[in-house]
Structure formats: structure tokens, C-alpha cells
């Protein structure tokens, strides 16, 4: 009896401590509303190769600074099998600019060539373990499932595209397209925390 309680509590604590997906994890599917009011289902949007999930928002200077670069990356990699999808995880009560209307305006102003969906219940970003905006999760298809292959940031200079020396995300996608492992597979970046009143 004591042994099974110990094992059970170890399992429970492991589940509690694990904060988001890791490299190699299979992701659960999601269906979220796009700025055109239509529902997007991740597994249907992803191609045979995979998909790039970007947790982002309308107001964070880091997220905004990367928009053009992410649009360019989508234009380059969507046809190769890695389209982008923008997900806004913020609570609009904390950041009014991140309301659905705000998202629609942003998508329109910047002519986003990809979906921009709202993580309305804030369940998705927690599952992924996204911590700041922008936060990238590259998913590749393996045996019909979507598996995490890269987590992190886009490059090493949010402020000045001309001064970028390390193109972390592009390099990861190039590696995956030739069936190699991205190196690095995980990167970190400063960014605005995700706004959640229940954190």
C-alpha cells in the first residue's frame, strides 16, 4: 500500500512539474478561431512536413519587431512544407490591444499571409509551455502525428535584421527539410511574458 502511494505521488508530482512540451513530444490537436471568424484546426492546417506555431501578440515590441521576418519566413517555407500559424495567448482584460478586434486589425494592417488565431481559454499556450512572446514551436509530422522539433526564438537580434548573425529558426527549418536534427534544438530569448491573470 505504502509503495503504491509513493509511486502515485511521484507520478503526480512529475505531471505537475512538467511545464509544457519538450523536444520529441507529440502535441495534441487544437481548433481555434481565426481573424476571418473561421475555425482553424492545427492538424488540418499542417502540411505533410509540418507547421510552425508562433505564440505572439499585438503589443510586445519583440513580437512586433519580428513580424516582417516571420512573414518572410512563411513566404519562403510554406511552399516547402512549413507554413506558419500565429496564436495570441494573451488575456485582453490585461492587454486590451490583444482583443480579437485588435488581432483582426493587426492581421489586416500587416497583411498576414497565415492564420492568426486566439487561444481564448489560454489552455493551448499552457500545454505548449510558451512563456513569452514571440515563442516558436516547430512541429514535424511523424507517423501521422505532430511532434515538437524546435523550440525558441527566431534569430539573435530582435532589433536590427541587418545585424543578425544567427538565424536559429531558418536554420532549424533547413535542417528538418533535409531530415537532420536542428542544432540548436532549443533557444531562449527575452520577451514579454504571456498575460494571464491566473498565473
Amino acid at each position: 500500500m505504502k509503495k503504491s502511494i509513493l509511486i502515485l505521488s511521484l507520478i503526480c508530482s512529475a505531471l505537475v512539474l512538467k511545464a509544457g512540451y519538450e523536444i520529441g513530444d507529440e502535441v495534441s490537436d487544437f481548433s481555434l478561431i481565426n481573424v476571418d471568424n473561421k475555425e482553424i484546426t492545427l492538424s488540418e492546417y499542417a502540411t505533410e512536413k509540418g507547421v510552425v506555431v508562433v505564440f505572439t501578440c499585438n503589443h510586445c515590441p519583440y513580437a512586433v519587431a519580428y513580424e516582417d521576418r516571420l512573414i518572410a519566413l512563411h513566404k519562403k517555407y510554406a511552399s516547402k512544407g512549413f507554413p506558419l500559424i500565429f496564436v495570441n495567448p494573451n488575456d485582453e482584460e490585461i492587454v486590451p490591444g490583444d482583443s480579437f478586434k485588435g488581432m483582426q486589425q493587426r492581421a489586416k494592417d500587416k497583411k498576414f499571409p497565415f492564420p492568426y488565431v486566439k487561444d481564448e481559454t489560454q489552455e493551448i499556450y499552457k500545454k505548449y509551455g510558451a512563456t513569452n512572446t514571440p515563442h516558436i514551436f516547430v512541429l514535424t509530422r511523424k507517423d501521422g502525428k505532430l511532434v515538437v522539433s524546435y523550440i525558441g526564438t527566431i534569430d539573435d537580434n530582435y532589433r536590427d535584421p541587418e545585424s543578425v548573425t544567427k538565424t536559429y529558426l531558418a536554420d532549424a527549418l533547413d535542417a528538418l527539410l533535409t531530415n537532420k536534427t536542428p542544432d540548436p534544438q532549443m533557444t531562449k530569448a527575452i520577451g514579454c511574458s504571456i498575460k494571464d491573470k491566473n498565473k
Partner: protein
Amino acid sequence: MKKYISILIFLYFVSYTGFAGDKIKIYNSFNEISEILKPKGDTTLFINFWASWCKPCVEELPAIEKVRNEYSNKKIKFLLVCLDDPSKIENMVLPLLKRLDIKAHVVLLDDTDYNSWIDKIDPSWSGAIPGSLIINQNGKKFYEKSFTYAELKQVINNHLIP
């Protein structure tokens, strides 16, 4: 005319020494700043990472300043590491510090290859700000959160070396 030119040349060089308004030293890489992030002797160092556009960062600055004042005779030093773009110092950072009456030591770290140094502060840090490192000869702990005045006092009390 010559006098004006030499004054202009002087100001030009001053702007490149990495100071802005005599108030905020700019460190252009993590390597440059790493020395001041090391505590000396039995002093505890509280290092806060923030930016002027980060709302929760700005909201906790007055609490940090209040504790800093109260603990001025204790063995603790406070360092506010600003991650703003240097171009924002004059029109955003300095006015903000003046408005909130923050007299703590503020420096600016301008190293945008965050992936290369975040883990050096603490591997558990995701990179979200605000975040604070408390470090002394007994060890260090990173707090990926913003503090209230009461929380900050309690956390510091737990780390201070008597």
C-alpha cells in the same frame, strides 16, 4: 568656429564611451557586464532585469526602490539591468526613472543574442521579464516573477548573510 567644432568632437566621443546623460552605463555584451554581476565578500546582490515597455517590470520598480532605501545599512546591493534599446535611454528610460524617483544603480545591457547569455544568469530562466537574481557567497536563486514590496523583503531576508 574652431571652439564649436572641438566641443562637437568632444561630445561625439563622449557619446561613444557608453554613457548616457552621466546616468546609465551601457554594456555592449554580456561578457562586459558579467564582472559587476558577481557579489563581493558577504554582500548579497539583487539583480533585476527589466525594460521600460514591460508593464509588470515598471510596476515593481517602486517596491524595489523602497526596499533598497530601507536596507541601505544592510549587506545588500541592488542593480537594475535595463534591456531597452540604447536609443530609448534619453526619451524613455531616464524620464521613467525620474518620474518614479528611482535612485538605484541602473545599467543597460545591449546584447541581443539572448540565447547566448540567459542560461548564464540561470538555466531555469525562460527569458520572460521581469526576472530577478539574488546571489551571494552561499549561492544564487532566480525568480521569474515580479515582486510586491512584502514579498521582496521576505525573499531578501531569506538570503541575507547576517
